[in-house]
């Protein structure tokens, strides 16, 4: 009996020590090498293609697993005046970013390409105006707006007095494959 109790206490202590060891603070990567941007030139922006169907591209943006990087993306989203057209995700002059429709694709590399190259009818090109590191952070934040980033990483509060509910409490909206062009992104007639 006594032995069993001792063993139980021992097991409990060992488990606690292991659990404590599992506590790890997420690191702020301040001097990391950003994900490579080379593939941006070859990224496909549409699923339509001749010949047999091909699996869609899936890129991993490491910043989507780093809360600090995503919140930096949020700050840049404000400071680089993305809000000027897309507002806080609801859209207006530019298409909304918090819905499920992706005109030029929802993959991180497709978003990266959209920011760097610009898109017709109003989206400016940020080539050479933002460095790759910053663009990857903004891309991660843009995906968090429709819940594509896990909620423990997405920003949980806004710096503004008011605004939409935080990205962390946004439910994931599965990207719609063929988005089409919303009214707001059409060429002015």
């Amino acid at each position, binding site marked *: 009996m006594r032995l069993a109790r001792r063993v139980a206490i021992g097991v409990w202590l060992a488990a606690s020590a292991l659990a404590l060891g599992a506590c790890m603070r997420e690191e*702020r990567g*301040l*001097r990391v090498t950003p994900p490579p941007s080379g593939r941006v030139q070859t990224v496909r922006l549409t699923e339509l293609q001749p010949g047999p169907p091909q699996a869609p591209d899936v890129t991993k943006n490491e910043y989507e697993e780093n809360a600090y990087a995503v919140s930096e993306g949020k*700050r840049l989203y404000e400071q680089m005046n993305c809000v000027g057209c897309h507002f806080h995700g609801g859209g207006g002059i530019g298409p909304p970013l918090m819905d499920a429709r992706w005109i030029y694709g929802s993959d991180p590399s497709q978003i990266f390409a959209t920011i760097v190259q610009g898109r017709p009818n109003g989206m400016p090109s940020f080539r*050479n*105006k*933002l*460095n790759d*590191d*910053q663009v990857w952070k903004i891309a991660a934040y843009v995906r968090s707006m429709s819940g594509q980033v896990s909620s423990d990483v997405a920003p949980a509060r806004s710096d503004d007095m008011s605004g939409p509910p935080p990205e962390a409490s946004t439910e994931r909206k599965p990207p719609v494959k063929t988005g089409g062009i919303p009214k707001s992104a059409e060429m002015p007639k």
Partner: protein
Amino acid sequence: MRAMRLIKNSVSLALTKARSVARGSSSTVYCLLSTVYFSPSAVYLLTDLRSQSALDPAGPQAGRIISLWWLMFYVTGTVFLIVMAFLVGALVRSRRPRRGETLDVPDVKPEPARERRMSHVVLTGIALTVVILFVFLVNSFLTGRALDSVSAKDHLTIKITGHQWWWEVEYENSTAQYVVTTANEIHVPTGQPVLFKLTATDVIHSFWVPNLHGKTDLIPGHETVTWLRADSDGVYRGQCAEFCGFQHAHMAFTVVAEPPDKFKQWYDSQLAPAVEPANQSQAQGRQVFLSSPCVMCHTVRGTDAGSRVGPDLTHVASRQTIAAGTLENTRGHLAGWVVDSQKIKPGNRMPPNNLEPGDLQALLDYLQSLK
């Protein structure tokens, strides 16, 4: 009284010495860091910096604060010594049991004379405490009132905006073309009252120049005001005094108090737009500046760069430090800051810049020409 003055002088002297030793070692580090390059001309030198200390007042407000501080220091110091003397006395004269006596049986013999004496002592103590606290109360109230008496109609208005982690400085003027914007270095004319309007864009910061005044918080979305007057020329270091994030410790600034005519001269030079490039390299540097991420955050008046996210660089070469008082403004430091500022001040908002060596040298030539 003479003893008091002696204590006061030795405390000040020790602090000044400690500071000069610290400054000496840091300037050695600077010399080692900036290997070859030094900016030769300077309006004033960093070595003119007065020790950053509230014990070395240079303005009327800091003078009032330090008088209150010394009063409290002397009185509470004396009280502390007296209390300690009683405590030590009690320990030394502690009653040991005499032979044949046991401590278990308390001595309850009434001693009316002794009790009367003791209640006198306690009552005197209470009365003294009340008097001392009252003196402190009146004095601190008068000091608080005197701190506001600097205001005057003939004043200069400077708007300070706190950012993580630097200070935006804007000299207000009813005519827009006479507004000067700079960063981390505040020039004021000696003897003239200055109204500071303080606000912040991100989190709460606190504006503190110990030699001139106490602290005033900068609050996002709200404007606080404080008055300053520097009575003697000098360079006073200020520091953010409210924890504001990763680089709070590296959020410093300098207040340069100079004679009114010299101030006017500085002000006029700051009003001018940026100088045109004088040679091929500087022209290339400007091109690099305007076609790279620099232009997304910084302003250089007279060019297309007009963003206000980062510090205004129109006259960056006229400033003595970069990165909010973190580094001396030398070519080597500028290069390190442009290429890899995250090594120097981790977490700051300046991104790393991967420039070609030729472009970097040209950019440095251009930045150093912006006097």
